[in-house]
């Protein structure tokens, strides 16, 4: 046992030496954000540029908007970067955040089977799409995870006057998962789903799915960034966090966001004033 322990210990120390210095070299901030910004590759593109300029590393925790907000309220993040305007405003007015800044926007799209069993491709508005899906009881896969996308989807059902919860487990499936995992399920069962355009373009398992509706005004998807209030959580890295926000909304940060392209398509459109 002693020999084995010492082998383990030596290996641990060795590996620790390899892993830790790199991880602890820089000052860092923690950003609670959404899967859409991470999975699309936006952060992978813009964050190294911010780090090169300021020397500040950005640790991104990519979860749904609802969970991101709760993490920020717990004080487990310095900056919140999400996409659900109502929740963001509430976060600030409840005193958890300092101020909300517009950063960028993209839009939601409705995706579904190429065969379009609910005949939604001819619909003119998102409400018409939702109504058609409910009427034909075509499979619909919801995030079901209190994320920004899920909140938006619930808003669309409400606008169409439909309560999909009543059909939960029948044609309406609540995945309780991230955007990509939800799209995997929709792909597998040949169902409809709502997704942000960024995740959709980056998503690789599209076989048999395509965009069935886009461009309605109520599918706009604005992102906001908020510094967590040091009054609530004194350990928040206010200075570094504000630097990150200032950079995002600066002409430089904004043009980097606009320059991020995937498969030749621009995914996010700068909105900072």
């Amino acid at each position: 046992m002693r020999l084995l322990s010492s082998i383990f210990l030596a290996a641990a120390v060795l590996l620790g030496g390899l892993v830790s210095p790199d991880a602890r070299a820089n000052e860092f901030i923690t950003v609670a954000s959404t899967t859409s910004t991470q999975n699309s590759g936006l952060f992978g593109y813009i964050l190294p540029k911010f780090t090169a300029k300021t020397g500040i590393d950005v640790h991104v925790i990519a979860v749904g908007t609802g969970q991101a907000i709760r993490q920020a309220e717990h004080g487990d993040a310095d900056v919140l970067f999400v996409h659900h305007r109502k929740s963001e405003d509430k976060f600030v007015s409840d005193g958890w955040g300092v101020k909300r800044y517009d950063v960028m926007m993209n839009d939601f799209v409705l995706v579904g089977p190429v065969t379009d069993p609910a005949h939604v491709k001819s619909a003119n508005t998102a409400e018409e799409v939702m109504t058609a899906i409910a009427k034909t009881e075509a499979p619909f896969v919801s995030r079901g995870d209190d994320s920004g996308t899920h909140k938006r989807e619930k808003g669309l059902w409400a606008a169409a006057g439909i309560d999909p919860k009543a059909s939960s487990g029948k044609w309406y499936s609540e995945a309780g998962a991230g955007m990509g995992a939800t799209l995997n399920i929709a792909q597998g069962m040949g169902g409809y789903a709502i997704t942000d355009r960024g995740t959709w373009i980056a998503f690789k398992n599209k076989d048999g799915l395509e965009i069935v509706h886009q461009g309605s005004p109520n599918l706009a998807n604005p992102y906001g960034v908020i510094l967590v209030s040091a009054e609530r959580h004194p350990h928040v890295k206010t200075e570094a966090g504000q630097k990150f926000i200032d950079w995002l909304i600066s002409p430089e940060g904004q043009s980097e966001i606009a320059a991020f392209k995937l498969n030749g398509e621009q995914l996010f459109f700068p909105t900072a004033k």
Partner: protein
Amino acid sequence: MSEITTAFGTAISLIFSINSELAQIVGLSLYVSICAVLIATILGVPLGASVALLRFPGRGPVQVILNALMGLPPVVVGLIVYLILSRSGPLGVFGLLYTPTAMIIAQVILVTPIIAALSRQVIEDLWAEYAEQLTSLGASPLRAMPTLIMDGRFRLFTAVLAGFGRATAEVGAVMMVGGNIDHVTRVMTTTIALEVSKGDLALALALGIVLLSISITIGALAQLIKDRRQMKGRA
């Protein structure tokens, strides 16, 4: 099904091309799991041996609890450790959430019951075998403990390997307390989960094959060391 064939190709090229990003992820996986198993061994073996040898009130329930804890769901452990290490939690001041240390803590909680419960069985069997001999030499169960641990070290090693397997395979706990931060807390299993969520099933499966290869290599190495030592012991 083309994903499966693509995955094998990708896995092979991942293993043989020296990919620094992958090396970092593998390195962190091993670092976290080895540290966790080491700590869990230091805690679990004496704990298991004590339950096997000592007679104390509540020994029965402790055994039942140890056995039950072997099946702790990682995501529950992750949640508990998250709530404790969160800035709003009792140990929040240390700022340990989303660090490799937090991941080690979670894995220690997962692995210790496995090592303890399996060690208890090993030591109990040995005690049944040698109790007469050891007591005739005047050794109390407490005094006999180091001897029995030493004697059962090869069998105990299997318990440690079982714990190591659990640690490297779980994703729920490290995802929750590590946050899957690129270059900081991203390990093999959370990378696989991330690639699945991006819909890149071939890459995810390829990473799974890499993980499996590493497990097999470590298992083989451990077996080799064990066999060598065992042979030496007999000679």
